[in-house]
């Protein structure tokens, strides 16, 4: 199964996302923002970073870059898309996911191993988790505060679109502790924390068992591969 990762000018975590796909057993395909070619991939990851310097608004210029026309079209046709951090910001900028992301309420960049609760396993990206499972993956952002108006929040909660919620610490002032969302079909998921940084023991968050042994993020990529193979 081919999973594409789009590199934008200023992407930081594209290599890590490609690595995560490989470690999960998929075939990673590097894609370039300036092309109109998805190279026959079966699913897409929009990676973290600071695309176009995050000028204008985070993810806003990337959301209008050439390849996004194909990404949006494929997403509407049901291709699984995962947006991580800056990729999540792109998904809200394109309107594929509801709400918006603004500067952290405390004004600082924050980097920590973050505990999350998996609220929804009915997506190709989360089917390998248990409903309510708590996972720990790195979080690193300056503008991860999730916001939406009352009506949108009501819809998000009512339609069970919240996919990940911050546990114990809300690191950025996100409303309703929302860390990640899915769209109505579940194929499109976006989250601020970074699953691709917790995929290989020795390089992940600390766990009760051993330092840097956390691999909770790997399940996200394995879920996708398993789901598509089963289909």
């Amino acid at each position, binding site marked *: 199964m081919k999973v594409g990762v789009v590199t934008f000018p200023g992407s930081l975590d594209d290599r890590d996302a490609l690595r995560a796909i490989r470690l999960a057993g998929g075939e990673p395909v590097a894609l370039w923002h300036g092309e109109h070619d998805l190279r026959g991939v079966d699913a897409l990851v929009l990676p973290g970073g600071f695309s176009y310097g995050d000028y*204008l*608004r985070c993810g*806003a210029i990337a959301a*209008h870059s050439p390849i996004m026309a194909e990404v949006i079209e494929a997403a509407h046709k049901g291709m699984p898309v995962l947006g991580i951090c800056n990729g999540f910001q792109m998904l*809200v*900028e394109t309107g594929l996911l*509801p*709400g*918006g992301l*603004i*500067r*952290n*309420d*405390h*004004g600082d960049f924050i980097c920590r191993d973050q505990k999350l609760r998996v609220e929804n396993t009915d997506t190709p990206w989360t089917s390998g988790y248990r409903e309510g499972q708590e996972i720990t993956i790195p979080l690193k952002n300056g503008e991860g*505060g999730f*916001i*939406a*108006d009352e009506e*949108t929040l009501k819809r998000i909660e009512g339609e069970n679109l919240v996919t990940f919620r911050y546990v114990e610490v809300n690191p950025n*002032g996100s409303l309703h502790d929302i860390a990640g969302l899915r769209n109505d079909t579940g194929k499109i998921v976006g989250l601020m924390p970074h699953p691709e940084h917790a995929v290989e023991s020795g390089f992940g968050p600390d766990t009760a068992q051993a330092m840097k042994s956390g691999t909770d993020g790997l399940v996200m990529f394995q879920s996708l591969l398993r789901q598509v193979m089963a289909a």
Partner: protein
Amino acid sequence: MAIIVIEVMPKKELLDPAGKAVLGAFHRQGMSDFREVRIGKRFELHVEGDVTDAHREKAKTLAEDLLSNGVIEDIVDIRVEDSPA
């Protein structure tokens, strides 16, 4: 020469953490005259020659589609100004 000026502000009901940080700096300087600071953006679109209705129309479309995000921001003004040299 004229420019089209587009002004965008974070929505009133939303927290503006950047503005809040600046207000904090005011307070640290002992300045308590101002209750709130909000930070927005001013875009200047430079035009060759006169600003036409077509320019205005395109500026409005760009303001809505790219320069602002209606979920978190409001376009507060689009106007024509003399070019600052």
